[in-house]
C-alpha cells in the first residue's frame, strides 16, 4: 500500500513537473530546455513504446499483431495466454516458472549470504595478503564467463551436476559472483569503523560484530544483491542453455526459446503472451524496489 501511494505521488509529481517544465520551456529565452525536454520525451517513447506494444499484442490474435502499430487490440483475446500456458513442451508454463524459482531462490540466498560474509572479511580486517586477494577478486569481475564455461561444464559433468540446479546454487554459496562482494565491500566502507570497535570493547567477537552490527545496518545493500541476482538469473539464457537439458527442468528462458525454435510455424500470439508472462516478475520486482537497483549500480560504478 505504501509503495502504491508512493507511485501515485510520483506520477503526480511527474505530471506537475512536466507542466512546469513545459511552461518554463516555452517561456522567453528558454530554447535549450525546450529542446532537452523534447529529446527526453522522444527517448522515453522509444524506451516504453515497444514494451507497451508487446503487452497490447499479447491480447491480439496473430494476424492482428503484424501490420499494426496500435497498442490497444481491436479484437481482444486471451487465447494466446491460454494456449501458450498449456502448450509448450508437454508441461504447463507454470511448471517452468516453478523451475526457475527452484533454481533462482537458493542462488539468491547463496549470493546474499556469501557476499555479506566475504565482504566483511575484505572490508574490516587487516591481514597479510589482503590487498593482493582483493585485487584478485576485483580482476575476476572482468573475467569473461565465456572462457570459463567449457571447463565448468566438464567439471560439473565429472561431479554429476549437469542438468541440475547445483550448477548455479553451489557457485553462489561460494561467492563466485564477484560483483556482489564488490557491492558489499563498497557499502561496508561507508559504515564507521568505530561501530566495530565499540562492539568489540563490549565483548563481541567478530562474528557477533558481523551479525549484530554490520548486517542489520546493511539490509538495503544485501537486498540490492538479491534483487540483482534475481533479475540476472531470471533473464540468463546462455548458462541454462549449456547446463540444463531436460525439458522437465527447463527454466522460463529455455521454455520460451522452445516456442520460437520451430522453424516458420511460430505461433506468435502464444509466444508473445508467454514473453509477457516472463517479464512480469522482474518488472514487478523493479516497480516495488527500483531505488535499490539504482543505488546499487551507482555505488559499484562510482568507486570502480
Amino acid at each position: 500500500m505504501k509503495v502504491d501511494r508512493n507511485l501515485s505521488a510520483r506520477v503526480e509529481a511527474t505530471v506537475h513537473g512536466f507542466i512546469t517544465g513545459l511552461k518554463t520551456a516555452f517561456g522567453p529565452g528558454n530554447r535549450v530546455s525546450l529542446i532537452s525536454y523534447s529529446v527526453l520525451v522522444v527517448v522515453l517513447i522509444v524506451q516504453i513504446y515497444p514494451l507497451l506494444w508487446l503487452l497490447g499484442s499479447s491480447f491480439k490474435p496473430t494476424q492482428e499483431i503484424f501490420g499494426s502499430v496500435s497498442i490497444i487490440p481491436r479484437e481482444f483475446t486471451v487465447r494466446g495466454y491460454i494456449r501458450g500456458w498449456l502448450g509448450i513442451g508437454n508441461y504447463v508454463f507454470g511448471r517452468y516458472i516453478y523451475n526457475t524459482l527452484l533454481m533462482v531462490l537458493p542462488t539468491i540466498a547463496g549470493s546474499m549470504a556469501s557476499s555479506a560474509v566475504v565482504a566483511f572479511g575484505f572490508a574490516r580486517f587487516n591481514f597479510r595478503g589482503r590487498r593482493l586477494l582483493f585485487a584478485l577478486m576485483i580482476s575476476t569481475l572482468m573475467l569473461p564467463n565465456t572462457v570459463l564455461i567449457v571447463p565448468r561444464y566438464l567439471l560439473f559433468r565429472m561431479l554429476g551436476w549437469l542438468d541440475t540446479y547445483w550448477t548455479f546454487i553451489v557457485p553462489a554459496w561460494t561467492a563466485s559472483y564477484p560483483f556482489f562482494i564488490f557491492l558489499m565491500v563498497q557499502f561496508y566502507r561507508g559504515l564507521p569503523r568505530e561501530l566495530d570497535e565499540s562492539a568489540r570493547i563490549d565483548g563481541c567477537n567478530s562474528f557477533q560484530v558481523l551479525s549484530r552490527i554490520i548486517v542489520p545496518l546493511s539490509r538495503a545493500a544485501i537486498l540490492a544483491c538479491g534483487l540483482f541476482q534475481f533479475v540476472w538469473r531470471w533473464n540468463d539464457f546462455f548458462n541454462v542453455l549449456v547446463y540444463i537439458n531436460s525439458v522437465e527442468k527447463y527454466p522460463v528462458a529455455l521454455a520460451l526459446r522452445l516456442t520460437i525454435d520451430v522453424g516458420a510455424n511460430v505461433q506468435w500470439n502464444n509466444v508473445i503472451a508467454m514473453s509477457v508472462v516472463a517479464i512480469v516478475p522482474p518488472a514487478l520486482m523493479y516497480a516495488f524496489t527500483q531505488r535499490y537497483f539504482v543505488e546499487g549500480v551507482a555505488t559499484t560504478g562510482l568507486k570502480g
Partner: protein
Amino acid sequence: MNRAQRYHNMGYVYLIPWIVGFLVFQLFPLGYSLVLSFYKYPLLGEPTFVGVRNYVKMFTTDPNFMQSVRVTFLYVVLVVPTKIIFALMVALLSNMSVRGVGLFRMLFYLPSIFGSSVAISILWRSMFLKRGLVNSLLSLLGVPAFPWLTSTSLALPVVASLQVWQFGSSMVIFLAGLKQIPTDYYDSARIDGANPWQMLLRVTLPLLTPMIFFNVVMQTILAFQDFTAPFIVTNRGGPLHATYVLGIHIYNHAFTYFNMGYGSGLSWMLFLVIMFFTALIFRSSRRWVHYES
C-alpha cells in the same frame, strides 16, 4: 601475536567461501581451459595432445572463425560508443532540476531490467519482421518496408540496437557522477563568464571521464561476449552468418559438436582479444581520464 592482530587474522576465516569458489570455479577452469586448448577432445572420446593445432585451425581451415571475429568487432564498435553517448546524453539532460524527472529516470532504466533476455529478444524479432512494428511505423511515414532480419547489412545493426536500448545502467552511473560535481565549480565558471556549452566541455565532461572510462571498459567486455540477442533475434547468428558473433561460434563448437578442445581454444582467443582491448583502454586512459587530486 597481540590481541588486535589475532582479531584481524580472523579475516581469513570470512574469506574461506570466496577462496574455495575462486579456486574451484574460477582459477581452475581458467587454467584447465588453457590446457584443453592444446588438446583434441571430443566429449565422448579421449583427449589427445595436438599442440597449437587448434589455434592454427582457426586461421586456416575453420571457415567461420574469421567471419565471427569480424562480426564481433563490428558489433562492439556499433554497440559501445552508441550506448555510452546515449547514456551520457540522457543523463545530462535528465540532470536538470525539474520535478518529476525521477519517474523519467525510472522508466529509462526499465529496459535494462529485462536485459537481453529471451523474452526481449523475441520482442525484437517480432518488431523487425517483415510486417512487424518497425515496418508498420515506417509505412505510416510513407517509407517502404526494409527486410531487417534477412538483409546481411541490416541484421547486425538491429541486434546492436537492442543493446543500445539498454543504456540504463550506464546512465545511472553517469547520473551518480554528475551528482558528485560540486556546484561551486559551476558558480566560479559562471563568474568567469562561461556559457553553458563551455561549462559542459570544460567542467562537466572532464570530471565525468572516470565514469566514461568505467562504462567503456565494462560495456566493451560485455559486448564482446554477447550471445542471447544474436542467437534469438536473428536465429543463431543469421542471415548468412551476418550476426554470427564469437559467442555463438564457441557455443556451436563446444556444445553442439562437443569439441571441448577447440571450444576452449576459441574461448581463450576471445579472452585474449578482450584482455588486449581492455589493456588498450586502460593505457589510453592516462591521456584522457581526469582524476581529481
